[in-house]
């Protein structure tokens, strides 16, 4: 699972949660909140969909790690790797 794969997983989840957002031009190094209209309910959904679709657990204390696409990749990369390793 590459960083690009992880970022597109997150973007796909956002597209599902917020179909009214334009995701064609999301800068990976800028906070998602600053470029998209996402609130805490939406972030909860990103976390819940990660669990539902990919079996990834994000504890509440780590929610801020999902601030931007880059930070998502940093944070989720080892988690996806661990998941693949265990399969």
């Amino acid at each position: 699972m590459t960083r690009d794969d992880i970022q597109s997983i997150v973007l796909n989840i956002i597209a599902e949660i917020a179909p009214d957002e334009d995701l064609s031009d999301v800068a990976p190094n800028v906070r998602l909140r600053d470029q998209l209209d996402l609130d805490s309910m939406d972030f909860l959904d990103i976390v819940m969909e990660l669990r539902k679709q990919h079996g990834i657990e994000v504890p509440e204390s780590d929610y801020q790690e999902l601030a931007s696409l880059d930070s998502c990749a940093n944070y989720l990369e080892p988690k996806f790797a661990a998941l693949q390793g265990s399969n």
Partner: protein
Amino acid sequence: MNQAKSKPKKDHYDVVIIGAGMSGMAAAIRLAHFGKDVCLLERHNAVGGLNSFYSIGGRKYDVGLHALTNYVPPGVKGTPLVKILRQLRIARDELDLNPQRCSRIAFPGVDLKFSNDFTLLESEILREFPDQADGLQTLLRKIREWDDNQLDYPDVSAREIVGECLSNPDLVEMLFCPLMFYGNAREHDMEFGQYVILFKSLFFEGFARPFDGIRVMLRVVRNKLKESGVERCMKLGVKLIQAEQGRVAALELDNGRVITADKVISCAGWPETLSLCSDVETKENPSNVGRLSFVETINILQRQPREFGLEDTIVFFNDAERFEFARPDELVDVRSGVICIPNNYDYSEGRQLEEGIIRFTAQANFEKWNSLNEEDYVDQKSWWFKALGESACKFLPIDSFDVIQQQTMVTDMFTPKTVKKFTGRLAGAVYGSPIKNKPGKTHLENLYICGTDQGFLGIVGAMLSGITIANLYGLRGD
């Protein structure tokens, strides 16, 4: 009892939801979507709770819906409507929301028109009450600054705060009137937090209606329940919530089954839910029951209301010297009320409701209606039907109620007694308890309240309440 054959399918669930009202269904969808095993119990044979419909003589009548409040056009973000669509994965088009044309607050000698564009109301106020311009800006600032995402805001009097901003009592009452009729559970005054929620949902946001009324929303929500895997049990209520050591130990159902759940969320109302609990002593005489209820009359007309000059979507009227929002001494208080004309929404693609519809709503006294014998009940209904129509028509551009009656093909009417019968809300209290339970918690650790009694209002508000409680206690920190 043959357990294998009776509902529900299992003996234990992650979450049991009491009531298939809008909030209960929204909570169930959220929880099941994220993998919870959810059972939704509804005592009535139809979903929707206070927002349902019924059929008589081949016609379908909406119960609660005059207007869906909180309407914003596509592209507006961050408002309750957008939140519920996202959280329930509903595409906006599915709801077929058509905006209102124009509504009105009508008091003796003064009219304030409003639409889904707030600047209209603002300019109307400035025209009628020019000396209130500064006060209005102060009030609007306080409304905008109020943080309505906070779950436990302080209970401060709206009358006090609005009175500090506006010095003209007529304007104060004209603004209170629609807000109270569309969601206030308290007599005479309301919490400022509720005032803000309602002000935003009616005036900053606005009114819309699906062409086919509430059943469009119910159909969408029912499909979501199915898709997400909620087990829905109709005509099956909870008889007793067995409490042990501060927790819900089990639920005894109307059919004799006993089931268990990790968590229980109820949208049956706060006092109504408490009166189901085995450890609550005031079961027979619960406190915090709302005193406000309504009658509504429905006139089905052979022509479009616009053909005889009725252009308004909704009219909030008051004929009393001072607007009063309280349980009336008589069966009905016809001095003030709401007129709703569902034909007067701006339906897309030039659609037009086949028949004309006019609904009149007014405050009513539950105890009085409830104590009538069958014969008197029928007589009183027809007497007040006419009295309400006559009073309301003074605020319409027609000579009298006769004009409407001459066009009328069919009528119907419901009273506080009808509301109680079909929703289980004590005293037919449409807007629930005067004291809201904003955190949604109860004396039992795993029993939560959602819906009107949690302090969100209207259809969108109810659904947001269910979502909020599901997120907070069902999904987060799990």
